[in-house]
C-alpha cells in the first residue's frame, strides 16, 4: 500500500518488520522504489531478492518507465530476456513499448514490436494500444494506422491514441474523420479525445468545429473542460485572429490562466498586428508572472520592439539575463541505421565535421541560388555581428543532424530528428528547402510539435 502511495520509505519500514518475506512483498517494495525514481535502491533490492518471477521483473521495469527512466527499464528488460524469464503475461511488453514511446526511440520500438509478434502477443488489446501510441510518437503515423486498422477489438484508448497521434502530426481532417467513425461505432470519447480534437482544429483554423466540440464535450458527454481544453480553444481563437473573443475567454474561464496561456495570446496579438493589445498583455505577463520560459522573454522583447518601446525591450532582455538561465544547449538526435547520433548546437568537433560542413555549404548554395534563401538572423537575440549570427544559425544542431542522415542513412528513407528546443524560424525555412532539394522527407520533433517537411512544405503550415 505504501508503495502505491509513493511512500517507499514507509513501505520499507513495514517490509523490514516482516519475518518471512514473500516474493509479493519484495516485489511491492521494489515497485515502490522504482516508481519513485529511486533507481539505485530499487536495483539493490531487486538483486537481493531470493526469488524473482516475471511479476518482479515487470514491477521493476514498469516502475522505471513510470518514473521516466526508460534506458534503465530497457537495460533491465535485456537482462530479463537473457535469463529466459518466460513472458506469460504481456504487461512487461506494453511497459517497454511505453518506454520507447517516451523516448521516441523508434529503433528500440520496432525491435520490441518484432518481439511482440514473435511471442504471439500482437492481438493483445493493450499492447496494440501501446504500439499505436509508440509509432505516433516516433513520427510514423502510417504504422500507427496499420496497427489500428488490423485490431479485431478496439477500445476508447485505441481510437484516442490514433486521433491524438494524427492531431500531433497536423492531420486534422483525418483526426476529425476518425472521431466521426469512432462515434458511429458507439465508442464514447473521453477528455483526452477532446484535447486531441480541439488541438487538431487549431492547426487548420476550424473555429466553428472547435467551438462545437468544446460545447459537445460537456453537453453530450458530461465531460467538464479542463485548463488544457481551454488552452487549446484559446490557441484556436488566437491563431484565427479572434483575439477579442480569446481575451474574453481568458478572463472568464474557471481556471487561472498560466504563463503559457498568456504567452499564446500575446503571440496571437503579435501575429495579428494588434500591438496595443499586445503591449497590454505583455505588461500583464511581465508584472504578474515571473516567466520561467526563456522563449517568453524573447516573445516579450519582440512585442515591445514592434511598438518601438525600446526601454521595455531592454528590460525584457535584462530579465532574461538575470534569470541566469543556462538554457540546455540545443541538441538534436537522429536515428541512422541502428545508431542514434546526437549533435549539439555549434559543435564543430564531430568526426565527420568536414563532410557535414561540405554538404551543408553545398545545400546552402543551392538554396540561395534556387530559392533565393537568405539567412534570417532576427532569430539570434545575442549581440554579435551579422556574420557571426549567420554562422551560429549554420551550426544549429538539427542541420548537422540532417546532413549526417543524408550522408550515412539509407538513401530515400525518411529522416527522423528529435530536437530538445523549438526549431527556429530560419531552420524551419532551411528544412523545407533541403526536403525539396534532396527529395527526402524530414520529420523533426521539437519541443512543441512535429514538423513533416516534404517537397518544400511543412505539415505545420508554418504555424508552430
Amino acid at each position, binding site marked *: 500500500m505504501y508503495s502505491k502511495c509513493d511512500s517507499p520509505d514507509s513501505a520499507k519500514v513495514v517490509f523490514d518488520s516482516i519475518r518471512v518475506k*514473500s516474493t509479493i512483498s519484495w516485489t511491492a517494495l521494489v515497485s515502490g522504489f522504482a516508481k519513485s525514481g529511486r533507481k539505485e535502491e530499487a536495483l539493490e533490492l531487486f538483486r537481493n531478492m531470493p526469488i*524473482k518471477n516475471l511479476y518482479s521483473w515487470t514491477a521493476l521495469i514498469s516502475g522505471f518507465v513510470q518514473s521516466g527512466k526508460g534506458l534503465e527499464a530497457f537495460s533491465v528488460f535485456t537482462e530479463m530476456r537473457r535469463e529466459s524469464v518466460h513472458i506469460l503475461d504481456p504487461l512487461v511488453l506494453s511497459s517497454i513499448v511505453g518506454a520507447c514511446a517516451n523516448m521516441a526511440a523508434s529503433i528500440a520500438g520496432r*525491435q520490441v514490436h*518484432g518481439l511482440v509478434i514473435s511471442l504471439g502477443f500482437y492481438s493483445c488489446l493493450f499492447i496494440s494500444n501501446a504500439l499505436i501510441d509508440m509509432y505516433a*510518437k516516433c513520427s510514423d503515423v502510417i504504422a500507427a494506422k496499420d496497427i489500428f486498422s488490423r485490431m479485431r477489438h478496439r477500445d476508447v484508448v485505441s481510437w484516442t491514441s490514433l486521433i491524438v497521434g494524427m492531431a500531433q502530426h497536423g492531420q486534422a481532417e483525418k483526426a476529425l474523420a476518425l472521431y466521426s467513425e469512432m462515434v458511429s461505432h458507439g465508442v464514447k470519447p473521453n477528455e*483526452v479525445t477532446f484535447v486531441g480534437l480541439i488541438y487538431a482544429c487549431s492547426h487548420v483554423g476550424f473555429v466553428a468545429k472547435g467551438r462545437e466540440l468544446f460545447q459537445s464535450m460537456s453537453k453530450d458527454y458530461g465531460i467538464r473542460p479542463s485548463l488544457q481544453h481551454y488552452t487549446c480553444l484559446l490557441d484556436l481563437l488566437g491563431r484565427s485572429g479572434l483575439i477579442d473573443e480569446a481575451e474574453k475567454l481568458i478572463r472568464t474561464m474557471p481556471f487561472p490562466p498560466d504563463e503559457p496561456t498568456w504567452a499564446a495570446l500575446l503571440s496571437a496579438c*503579435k501575429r495579428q498586428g494588434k500591438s496595443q493589445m499586445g503591449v497590454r498583455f505583455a505588461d500583464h505577463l511581465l508584472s504578474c508572472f515571473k516567466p520561467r520560459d526563456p522563449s517568453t522573454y524573447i516573445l516579450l522583447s519582440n512585442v515591445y520592439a514592434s511598438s518601438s518601446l525600446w526601454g521595455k525591450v531592454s528590460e525584457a532582455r535584462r530579465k532574461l539575463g538575470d534569470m541566469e538561465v543556462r538554457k540546455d544547449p540545443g541538441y538534436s538526435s537522429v536515428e541512422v541505421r541502428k545508431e*542514434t547520433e546526437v549533435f*549539439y548546437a*555549434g559543435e564543430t568537433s564531430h568526426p565527420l565535421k568536414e563532410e557535414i560542413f561540405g554538404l551543408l555549404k553545398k545545400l546552402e548554395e543551392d538554396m540561395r541560388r534556387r530559392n533565393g534563401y537568405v539567412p534570417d538572423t532576427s532569430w539570434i537575440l545575442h549581440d554579435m555581428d551579422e556574420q557571426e549570427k549567420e554562422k551560429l544559425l549554420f551550426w544549429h544542431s538539427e542541420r548537422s543532424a540532417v546532413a549526417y542522415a543524408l550522408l550515412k542513412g539509407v538513401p530515400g528513407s525518411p529522416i527522423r530528428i528529435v530536437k530538445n528546443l523549438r526549431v527556429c524560424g530560419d531552420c524551419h525555412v532551411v528544412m523545407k528547402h533541403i526536403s525539396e532539394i534532396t527529395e527526402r522527407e524530414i520529420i523533426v520533433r521539437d519541443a512543441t510539435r512535429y514538423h513533416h517537411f516534404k517537397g518544400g512544405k511543412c505539415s505545420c503550415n508554418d504555424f508552430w
Partner: protein
Amino acid sequence: MAHFTVRRKLATVLTKTLSSSTSSCSSFSTLSSRSRFAVSLIDKLSSTRTGLGPCYVTTRPKTSGSGYSPLNDPSPNWSNRPPKETILLDGCDYEHWLIVMEFTDPKPTEDEMINAYVKTLTSVVGRQKSHLFFEEAKKKIYSVCTSTYTGFGALISEELSCKVKGLPGVLWVLPDSYLDVPNKDYGGDLYIEGKVIPRPQYRFTEQRQTRNRPRPRYDRRRETVQVERREPTSQNRNQNQPQPSMGNQAPES
C-alpha cells in the same frame, strides 16, 4: 513567433492525460504518467546518464567561436547532455529482419505461405522468374512461421529490407532479435536451404499462453543433429525451448 509555449504545454498535456485517463486500463497505468514530449524528454535523458547498460556519453569538446553566445560559453551546462545510447536487444544487428506478411481468405496452406515468402524475397534479391535468384533468396531465409504469425526471417541489408516493405502482402519489416537469448536463437521454424525444421511455437490465446503446435515433434535423430546457422546453436533443441512455467521461480515457502 507562434504559440510555441502553448504548444509545448499542449504537447505535454496530451501525453499526460492520455496516460492518466486510461489508468483504468492496467497496461497504461504502467506507462509513464509524465509527459512524453521533448520538454520532459530532456529531463529523462539527462537523468539516465548512469543507466545500467552501456551508456556512451559524448565527450567531444565544446567548440569556440568569436563573440559571446551561450553556445561558446566556457563553462557550459553539460550535465544535461543526453547519452548517446543505442538500444539494441540481443541478436538485433540490422541484418536479421523479421518480415510479416498477411494473406487474404481463403488462407493458403503452410507450403503455399512459405512459397510466398521465398517469392517475396526473390523480388528484391533479383528477377522473380530466374531460378537462380529463387535459390539465392532461399539461402537468405533463416526462419519461417505459419502459426503464431505469418512471416519469415531474412538475412539482408537494411537497404534491401526497405525495399521489401513496399511489396504486396508485406505488413511489417522489423529488426529481428533473439527469441531465446541464451541460445542465440531467432525463433520460428528453422529454414535451411529450403528445408523447414519445425519447432514448438508460441500461441497467445488471450487467456494464457500455450504451446500448441499441430506438427509432429522432432524424431530422436534430429534432436542430436547440429544445425548450422549463422551462429552456432545448441544441439538439443527441445531443451532450449522456454518452459511453460515461469522462469527462475522456485516454489515459494
